[in-house]
């Protein structure tokens, strides 16, 4: 072993491997890349649902279906009408405070389905 470690090339290679492992650990685990300036499509599922909920409430306020469509399209979902309806059903099933939210989402889902404002 001592003899094996007496070669600078071997020691250098071993240090290189250890250093690379350390670099990967730091780069992926300790200080991973942090993204900024992302689009709604990159949001996590809960954040996307919170976004959809706001789109529904904003639609209740302004009745602007084109704007609601544009906002939902930013989430990059193929059939956002279905997602909105599913979310509305989830909120409607909750016995707490957010019945109005469910109503807003249902209204948006209905408008998306009928395609009218």
């Amino acid at each position, binding site marked *: 072993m001592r003899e094996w*470690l*007496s070669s*600078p*090339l071997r*020691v*250098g*290679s*071993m*240090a*290189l*491997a*250890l*250093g*690379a*492992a*350390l*670099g*990967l*650990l*730091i*780069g*992926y685990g300790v200080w*991973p*890349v*942090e*993204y*900024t*300036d*992302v*689009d*709604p499509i*990159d*949001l*996590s599922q809960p*954040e996307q649902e*919170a*976004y959809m909920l*706001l*789109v529904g*409430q*904003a639609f*209740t*306020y*302004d009745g602007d279906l084109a704007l609601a469509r544009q*906002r939902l399209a*930013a989430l990059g979902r193929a059939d956002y009408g279905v997602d909105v309806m599913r979310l509305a059903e989830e909120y409607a099933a909750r016995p707490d405070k957010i019945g*109005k*939210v469910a109503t*807003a989402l249902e209204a948006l889902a209905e408008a998306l389905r009928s395609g009218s404002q």
Partner: protein
Amino acid sequence: MRSLQFALLIGMVAGTAIGLSTAWLIFPSPLANAEWTQLREEHKRDLVAMIAAAYAVDGNLTVAQARLFRLGLSDLQATLSEQAGGDPASARLAAALFPETAPSPATVPSPSSVQATPTRSAVARSSPTTAARPTATPREARYRLAEALDLGCSADHPQDAIAIYVRASDGQGLPWVAIRLGGPRGEDLFYTGLRPQVDPGYADYLVTAYGSYEIGLADEEQNASAKLRFEGCLSEDGEQHRVWRVIFEREP
């Protein structure tokens, strides 16, 4: 021995550099589970507008604050003030969050100028110093309570509500007039003009608690106010709702 130490040092430094380059540049971890704070500025602004619209609908300031907090805006007041110029809902939210900079009716431009160009930004952007409530002057407009009428219960009314109109003496609706409302759930401040499709001088309050309400203009110099008792509808199907209509009129 020295060459061994040198090889160890070089190997570690080079290996760490390779590992970091791989993790940060060559194969960075895929973007997933981003949060609102990471959104692009334009999306954050759109979310602010949506949060303001949601606040205009549900009137829940706590929820609005929590949502705004999630955006991680560096200067919330500046962002809201900036957006308040073209968005009445943002203006209302800004007024609720930063009442010291809220415009008073006396600082509101004339209805004609509001309708021609959205000049509200100038009001909302005012610093606390410059937005101090002006003292009354002999030229300040006076308002009177023209009507406080219980329109009764009807299935045509979608919700229990108090509909408020502020008009000039010629009947023209006046937007951007601050309304103060006191009721069972406490005080609330809001503005006319948020539903221009109804009337430029229209504002409504969705009643969620029955009891006594007092509605007046937020400007302390104005003493016109309506006191009413809001009672629920006793309909068998529960589909009827009551609406009160309150009209304030600016004196000529």
